[in-house]
């Protein structure tokens, strides 16, 4: 089916909804989403959203900017960090006016609490910067923005899976998508496309990410010739529930929770004497990995540590951390009032993604050449505002700040520009992909099961491309990925139906995961240094001479990474320094 809209937003989480809200009234806009909007993974964010409001103590956006740059181990583009820290204040107030139910101070203002890596006066000590709604801040942001979408009559295409990005004469002219309910392919002819499809945490075995987080938008852009930037920068959050990876927010530590090893020792203070348990995530995850590696883990296999909130008292736990303590009870049958919760680091967030400038315009190369009509915002995008390691809460800030900027820029673009025609055979690539997957239902020579390939991918990414990496592990993964790609070509489906064929959908998602995993591994292999989330035990130091640069991975026509290029980091106010907390 053919549709024509001035602009289409792909994805209805925080960034997609914020972008769509900028377009309604100015342009004919539709939002296509794989899930119902309220199911988006923004809703799983817990602890808060930082902005230098200064409601409970002195704070300045410059301090927030500095923390963001230092947290990102100086790979952060500083023009982007400045925008993030400045705009955050306005966006928080805007969402409060939309009705977001933040927790309040005794004076009735938005309450704020401490969060990892956020400091006063350029690193002197923790600061109360995180605005929050109990420990369901992401849920409230998602609900509030979806509600505004309803109020403004945004058109949603729910349960549509994006298949391809259409480019003609150097301009972005639309997308194709599969309607899950019917299996039908739809073409959306547009002047502008905004990607807001989220991350790809499902490439790892232990992850905080939803099943839906499979890198669909990244893969679609990558196949259409857009590079993926800094994919090796993948964050492991320190506190996932042991074995299953469900997130326990940093807010637990922001409220005073602490980590203890198998000997009952508060080990973070040995590594980060100033911020202790509130050091940035990449570091705390590495501290945990080191404790476990050196035999100080807990449990029969000494493979986890404890998060303690039992000393905070029932009142604080119930009013400020109700959801995450409920997770411990539901999934591990552990009572956080009285005992430590077993945790381990969990695959959490892609700092990398589709490269954009500070207005959300997608760029194609190290010279920042813009692809007209194409935008990206949120986790799918790499502005790069998080550099080599994102600070807690800055994902939510990113969504609303850059979702808004991308939407505004797209609105301006569609009002100024005329229509460009669709390319010839615009459905060919989508139909080939669907045809390949569907053929697997009848072809007896095809014997591979998606479940097996996915499990192998997740296990090996966990073993070889997680907190600690080296030449051997990364080369092993590259070999494994070519094997998995070959096996994917012999994929066999059992479901031959068209209506709500989720086996087909999962097969398409697996294809996207493989693309993202390969760009991640290749970027990590060639970045011969340790910086932020990329820690290599064969290159333990940061190397600003050779690698103070963004990786751009380009895809080969028939799969695999064709080449890597490097783009200089934007440095304005803060010269790179050694990172200590």
């Amino acid at each position, binding site marked *: 089916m053919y549709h024509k809209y001035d602009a289409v937003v792909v994805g209805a989480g925080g960034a997609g909804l914020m972008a769509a809200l900028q377009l309604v009234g100015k342009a004919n806009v539709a939002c296509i989403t794989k899930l119902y909007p309220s199911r988006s993974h923004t809703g799983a964010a817990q602890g808060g959203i930082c902005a230098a409001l200064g409601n409970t103590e002195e704070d300045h956006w410059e301090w927030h900017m500095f923390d963001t740059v230092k947290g990102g181990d100086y790979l952060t583009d500083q023009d982007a960090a400045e925008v993030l820290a400045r705009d955050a204040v306005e966006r928080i107030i805007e969402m409060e006016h939309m009705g977001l139910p933040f927790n309040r101070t005794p004076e009735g203002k938005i309450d704020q609490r401490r969060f990892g890596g956020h400091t006063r006066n350029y690193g002197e000590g923790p600061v109360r910067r995180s605005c929050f709604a109990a420990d369901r801040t992401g849920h409230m942001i998602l609900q509030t923005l979806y509600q505004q979408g309803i109020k403004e009559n945004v058109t949603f295409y729910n349960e549509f899976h994006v298949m391809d990005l259409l480019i003609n004469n150097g301009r972005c002219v639309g997308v194709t998508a599969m309607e899950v309910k019917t299996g039908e392919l739809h073409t959306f002819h547009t002047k502008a496309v905004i990607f807001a499809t989220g991350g790809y945490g499902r490439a790892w075995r232990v992850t905080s990410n939803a099943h839906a987080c499979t890198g669909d938008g990244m893969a679609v852009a990558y196949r259409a010739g857009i590079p993926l930037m800094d994919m090796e920068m993948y964050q492991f959050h320190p506190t996932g529930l042991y074995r299953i990876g469900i997130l326990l927010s940093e807010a637990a530590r922001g409220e005073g929770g602490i980590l203890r090893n198998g000997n009952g020792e508060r080990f973070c203070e040995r590594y980060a004497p100033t911020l202790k348990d509130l050091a940035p995530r990449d570091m705390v995850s590495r501290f945990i990995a080191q404790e476990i590696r050196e035999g100080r883990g807990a449990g029969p296999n000494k493979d986890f540590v404890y998060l303690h909130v039992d000393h905070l008292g029932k009142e604080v736990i119930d009013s400020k951390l109700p959801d995450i303590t409920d997770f411990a009870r539901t999934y591990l049958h552990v009572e956080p009032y009285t005992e430590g919760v077993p945790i381990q680091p969990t695959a959490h967030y892609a700092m990398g993604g589709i490269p954009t400038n500070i207005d959300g315009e997608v760029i194609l190369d190290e010279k920042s050449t813009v692809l007209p009509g194409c935008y990206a915002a949120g986790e799918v995008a790499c502005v790069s505002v998080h550099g080599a390691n994102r600070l807690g809460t800055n994902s939510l800030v990113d969504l609303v700040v850059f979702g808004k900027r991308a939407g505004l820029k797209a609105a301006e673009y569609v009002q100024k520009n005329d229509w460009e025609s669709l390319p010839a055979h615009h459905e060919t690539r989508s139909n080939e992909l669907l045809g390949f997957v569907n053929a697997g239902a009848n072809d007896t020579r095809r014997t591979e099961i998606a479940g097996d390939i*996915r499990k192998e991918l997740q296990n090996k990414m966990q073993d070889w491309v997680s907190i600690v990496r080296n030449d051997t592990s990364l080369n092993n993964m590259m070999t494994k990925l070519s094997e998995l790609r070959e096996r994917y070509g012999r994929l066999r489906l059992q479901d031959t139906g068209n209506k709500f064929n989720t086996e087909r959908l999962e097969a398409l998602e697996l294809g996207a995961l493989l693309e993202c995993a390969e760009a991640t591994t290749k970027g990590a292999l060639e970045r011969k240094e340790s910086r932020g989330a990329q820690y290599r035990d064969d290159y333990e130091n940061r190397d600003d001479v050779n690698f103070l640069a963004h990786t751009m991975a380009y895809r080969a026509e028939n799969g695999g990474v064709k080449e890597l290029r490097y783009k200089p980091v934007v440095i304005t106010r803060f010269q790179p320094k050694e990172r200590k907390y």
Partner: protein
Amino acid sequence: MATQVTLKILRYDPEKDKKAHFETYEVEADPLDRILDVLNTVKWYKDGSLTYRRSCAHGVCGSDAMRINGRNRLACKVLVRDVGGDTGKKIQIEPMLGFKILRDLVVDMDPFFEKYKSIKPYLINYEDAPASSERLQSAEDREIFDETTKCILCGACSGSCPPYWSNQDFIGPAAIVNAHRFIFDSRDQGSDERLAILGQGEGVFRCRTVYNCTDACPRDIPVTKAIEQIRRAMLYNR
């Protein structure tokens, strides 16, 4: 720790079946596995055609509400051992009642979301907001509607409500919960509009106070109490 678990699942494929029927699956599972994990094991390794919705897998996105042993639950918030699956008890899984089945455990959520939209689920305030600061709200005023902000629109409450099953026009508990979230927000000025909608024939007075909704809510929202508070607000206003 692995144990043998038996699932009895109601299946319906609109392209093949005239009516729904049960199929039984035996799979290995850990007592601490979620029911969703067990469904995934069936789908990924036994029968790829088994169809259900899922996303976050920890009870915050609301995708996987279904009937588990006769009660509406989220498949990702119930463990095998919570329903005795590890002691040989068969686990029966069906789509929620009160919704049209699209395929297997997937139901048509569109009418549900239309009802949600009908109660104007967004802040209504006719005054200009302060230029560069938040609207003030006391911690006590914020607390009044705290419970109903937790709703994830999974449909478990509406799908367990007898008046909702028998009357497709009834707005249902989920929409009422979301109306409550705004009616009791001190910053909101749309109460009269919403109370007028909820006071109509298919509004709050269809509720028979059977507490199924409160029982079903995976977020522990006191749904029936919220409905009661809205009825009182109506009577008081009149």
